[in-house]
Every structure is written in C-alpha cells, then in structure tokens.
C-alpha cells in the first residue's frame, strides 16, 4: 500500500512537471510582450530592456524554464532598478500587473474556491444521492418521472443563468462575500450560502441521475435479493446493502468533478463577488499576467492528480475486493 502510494506520488510529480513545461512553452514562447504590459503604454526602450533583464526574458527559453523550476525548489532573486528582491521557495514569480508574489495571490484565492466547492459539494451530494436513491426505489412512478424531469430541466439551463437568477432574485439570502473561516465561521457560512445553494442545487441534478442509475442497477442485484430474504427492513436493504454498493461509481465521478471545480468556479465567483482562483486566473488571462496564469495551471494540475490518487485510495476502503499493490 505504502509502496503503491509512493509510486503514484512519483508519477503524479512527473505529470505536474510535464504540464508545467508544456504550459510554460505555450505561454512564454507565444508572441506576447510581458515587459510592455508591466511598463505601460508610455515606456522607453531602455526601461523595457531593464525589465526584460530583471525577469530573464532576454534569456533563451530553456534557461527561463530552468530558472522557473529552480525558483519553485530553492527560491529566486529578482533585480529591478538596482535593488534585489528575494522570492522565497516555492517561488512562482511576481504578478506583472499586481506586483505581488504569485504564491501569495494563490494562497489568498485558494481558500475562497475551496470553501465554495466543498460547501456546494455537501449540498449536491446530500440532495443528489438522496433524490436519486428515492427515485430508484419508486422507479417508473409519477414521483420518479417528476425527479427525472426536474433534473433534465435544471441541467438544460446554462449554469450562469441559474447563478444570475439566484443573485438577482434570491434576495432573502444573506449578502454574499468572502470572510475567512477562522475569523468567524458564521459570517463565512452566511457569505457563501448563496453560492453553495447555486453550485449545490445545479450539480445535484447530475448527481441525482448518477445515483438513480447506479441504484437501479444495484437494487436489481442478487445480493439485494439475498438481503431481502433475510427478513431485514426495506430501509436497511436499500441504505445498507444497496447504497453501499451503488455509491462506489458515484464516488469516482465525484473525485474528478471536485478536481475540476477546484481549479476555479469562474461563474460562481464572478457572479457572487468571491475572489477565488477562477477570478484570479480570468483576470490574469485578460492582462497577459503570465506568472499568475502559470500558477493557476500548477494548482489545477496538482489538484487533479491528487484527487485521482485520493479516489483510487478511497476505493480500497469502499470495495474490499480492490487491493492496491
């Protein structure tokens, strides 16, 4: 098990490195003009050259990649206008437009996105799995058809329309905004409530359908019939024997979904005014703020790889037949 995890972590690191190099190449070799962005429209050629030198933009691409990687491991010094600024490891460079270390920007944005995604996930898992399980039990009835119809309806409306409608009309919800959890959990929760409901209820539609399909299959299995024949209650049959097996495929989807959502909930963050990863990278994209974009890519790839690993390990606990080694 430990050996397996070690192997997976090593392969995960290589995936992250490849992703970084590839995006580095794409961003830095593209015909962009970072020095011009930093300097602004009225800029002398000497100033541009100075900036390029301080960011090593005048070096060959391979050297630049090397310096970037080195910065992540041991930190990096930037010389600008005669002064030296030390950027501590892991150094992802400085934002061109905000003048702050990328790590600091990411560290500020990540908790916001994580809060939105985790809270939303709690809502959609509870609502979705419950609705799906109930619908599976009454398959074919009016209630089941109603549930399936509702999920189709919700899924066919673009997400940002739902979010906008919630932001515009659900005025009875507390004002949204991000307040750190450790300052006051209550204000943290109330500021995120609208976003949670929005993320939760729209994703619940998909999870209702996954769980319904999975539970219909599971409830038709022989071991469910065996459980019924023992004389235990229907509820116990469905929730202990059925759900336990039926949830396994849902967990797989959940892991991957969670990873994608963690790389930035752009619509949710923009509409509810929450300064998360999505907003940060979107802004960086508009302003050619390459170090911030690269930082976003790094976080995204790390999260994806980690979530995949977590799902695989979770499987060994869910299904005793899976033994990793």
């Amino acid at each position: 098990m430990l050996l397996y995890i070690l192997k997976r972590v090593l392969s995960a690191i290589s995936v992250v490195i490849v992703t970084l190099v590839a995006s580095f190449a794409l961003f830095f070799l593209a015909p962009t003009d970072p020095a011009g962005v930093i300097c602004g429209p009225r800029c002398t050629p000497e100033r541009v050259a100075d900036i390029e030198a301080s960011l090593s933009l005048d070096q060959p691409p391979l050297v630049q990649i090397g310096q970037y990687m080195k910065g992540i491991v041991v930190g990096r010094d930037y010389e600008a206008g005669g002064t030296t600024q030390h950027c501590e490891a892991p150094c992802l460079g400085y934002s061109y437009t905000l003048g702050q270390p990328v790590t600091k920007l990411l560290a500020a944005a990540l908790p916001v996105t994580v809060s939105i995604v985790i809270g939303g996930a709690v809502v959609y898992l509870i609502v979705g799995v419950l609705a799906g399980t109930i619908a599976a039990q009454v398959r074919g009835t009016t209630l089941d058809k109603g549930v399936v119809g509702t999920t189709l309806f919700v899924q066919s409306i673009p997400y940002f329309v739902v979010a906008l409608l919630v932001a515009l009309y659900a005025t009875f919800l507390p004002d949204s905004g991000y307040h750190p959890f450790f300052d006051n959990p209550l204000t943290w929760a109330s500021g995120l409530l609208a976003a949670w409901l929005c993320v939760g209820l729209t994703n619940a539609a998909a999870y209702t359908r996954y769980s319904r399909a999975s539970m219909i299959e599971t409830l038709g299995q022989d071991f469910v019939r065996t459980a019924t024949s023992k004389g235990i209650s229907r509820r116990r049959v469905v929730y202990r024997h059925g759900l336990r097996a039926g949830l396994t495929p849902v967990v797989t989807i959940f892991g991957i979904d969670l990873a994608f959502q963690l790389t930035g909930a752009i619509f949710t963050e923009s509409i509810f005014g929450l300064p998360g990863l999505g907003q940060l990278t979107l802004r960086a994209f508009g302003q050619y703020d390459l170090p911030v974009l690269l930082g976003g890519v790094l976080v995204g790839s790390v999260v994806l790889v980690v979530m995949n690993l977590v799902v695989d390990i979770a499987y060994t606990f869910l299904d005793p037949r899976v033994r990793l080694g």
Partner: protein
Amino acid sequence: MSDQTIPGPSTVTRVARTPGTNEEPYLEVNDLHVQFPTADGLVKAVQGLSYSVPLRRTLAIVGESGSGKSVSSMAVLGLHDRRVARITGSIKVGGREVVGMSDKELEKYRGGDASMIFQDPQSSLHPYFTIGDQIMESYRAHHSVSKRQAKDRAIDMLGRVGIPNPRRRVDQYPHEFSGGMRQRAMIAMALVNDPKLLIADEPTTALDVTVQAQILDLIADLQRDFGSAVVFITHDLGVVAEVADDILVMYAGTAVEHGPVNKILGEPLHPYSWGLLESIPALTGEPAPLHPIPGSPPSLLAVPSGCPFHPRCEFKDRVPDDLCRTLKPELISRTADLGRTSRCHLKDPDKVFETDVLPRLP
C-alpha cells in the same frame, strides 16, 4: 466423497428415503398464480400451481428455464415486488397465509421460519461485507442478541457447514472464499435461524461436479439434523435423483407431473418428462447424438391453448378430437397408482412409455 459421481436417473432403483407419508404438510401451495403486467402484455409466469411439502421431506421442482420454478418459490418467501407482481391463490407456511401479508409481517416471516439458498453464491453474497457480518445480520434480524453472541453463532454455523478454521474465515470477505466454500457460507446463512422450510434454488448450478456432490450431501445432512421441509429447485435430473423424495415437473408455469422420485424418474407418464429423460446424454457405450426436446419453451406472454406442451409433443396425434390443442388436461391420477398425478390426455401413458420411449433411453 470428492470423486463421487452423481447417479444418472436411469440408475435410480432405490426407494424414497422415508416411506410415503400422511404427515401434515408444512408448506401448502394452492392454486398459485403469479403474473407480471409488462408493456408487452401480461406475463403468466405461474398458473394454478398446487403442491405441499411436510417436514423432513424434500420436494424437487424440475423444469426448463422460464417454467416458473424460481418465480413460484420466490412467491413462497414473499420476495416479489408487489408493485410488479400480481399474486393470487394461497401459500400456507406452518398454517400462516403468506399471500397478502403486510410488509411488516413479511419482514418477520422471511429468513425466520422459511429461508432460501440462492443459485450463484458469487453474486448472491454482498461483496462489501464480511461473511460473518452477513450471517450475523440474518441472525440478529430474528433474535435479540448481542453482536458477540451473534458472531459466536456465525462461527458455530460456519463450522457446521464444514468450513475449516471458521474463527478466521468469519472475518473474511466473499471474494476470499472459493465457490464451494461460498455456497457453504450461503447455506450457513440460510440455516442460522433454524428454518422449518428451506428453499434451495439451484444451489449447485454454479459449482463444479465434485463440489456439487459435497453440497448436496451437506444439505441432506443438515435437513436430517434440522428436520426441515426442503424445496429443491433444479433442472439437473442427476441432482433430483440424489436429494428428492418427491418430484414436481413444471412446464410453462404449470405442474405437468407430480409424484415420488423413483416413480417419476423410473416410469414417467408425461411426454415432457420423457423428453427430459431422453435429453440426458448417455455416459456409457458409443457416443450418440443428443436428443433435445424439439422446439423451445413457449413465451409466457402467449401460452399455447389447451395443453401448453402440445406444439412440441410427438404424441399429440394419438389423442382424438384435437383435444391437446383445445382442452388443458387436469393434473390427476392417470393410472392405478393414486400417489402420482400427471397432466396429459393420453389414455395409456404407461404403455406408450414402455413401447415408444423406454427403448430409446440410453
């Protein structure tokens, strides 16, 4: 024991293990109908089935897939979803009527006085729970005991069904058991509450032949110890010869022949039973082509008129007036032997068997 061969039906000469009985039946099925309304029409899975089994006796229900043997037995345990299945008639277990029981009553009844061994232990045991956990759950559903006591009981049961080292095995998962061991565990689970009625639904189909013999012996031994009534569902006539006291042959949802095992296997009186015997490959002599029953079982959506077997029956011309096509025969005694019944219009089925069928048997 492991190299024991299953006796073929042609070798059956022994008498029933217990002599003919007048005992009070423990399971009594009367005019049972099970129907499933579907988009394509009404599936008539069981039509007017009646039989009874006293304690300490074994009834084998034989028939092709789709003949209604499993469906009728699941009805005995109240396992059909009542929103899907329409069940009429009467099923009495120990004097209690099962048809029309409420959900609460059914929960108490299932797995207590009546329990079931299922066909494929691989899929019938829950893959995510330990064997012990699953046996304990059965026991605790009917006895208010502590986990500790239930576990002791589970270990005891595993030992009784011949699983070596039950103390260690009790905490293992089904995938850590071999096929035969899994079926033993399934049997332990079915017997944990000392049921008076045990239904075994093709318990050996998924197992290889040597393991089959062990499992059959095990069920027979346990039946002796527990004194239960056993209903044994199978399509394997070799198994029937091994375990049964009585046989009920089913075709298209109805019983076509019923009687003591040596009579039915030795001198069957229904053309379908003849076909079953003829379709058994000969194990001795020159290799000969197989003799399957021509045609295939009817769709239960549109059961043939009259005798449901008539489209496949080679003797229907010997019955006058096209009766086979127009009138469904009664399940009654056709010969001087009143202990057995069959559902066929033939006047002298015993003679037809002797002159036309017997010479063709291997």
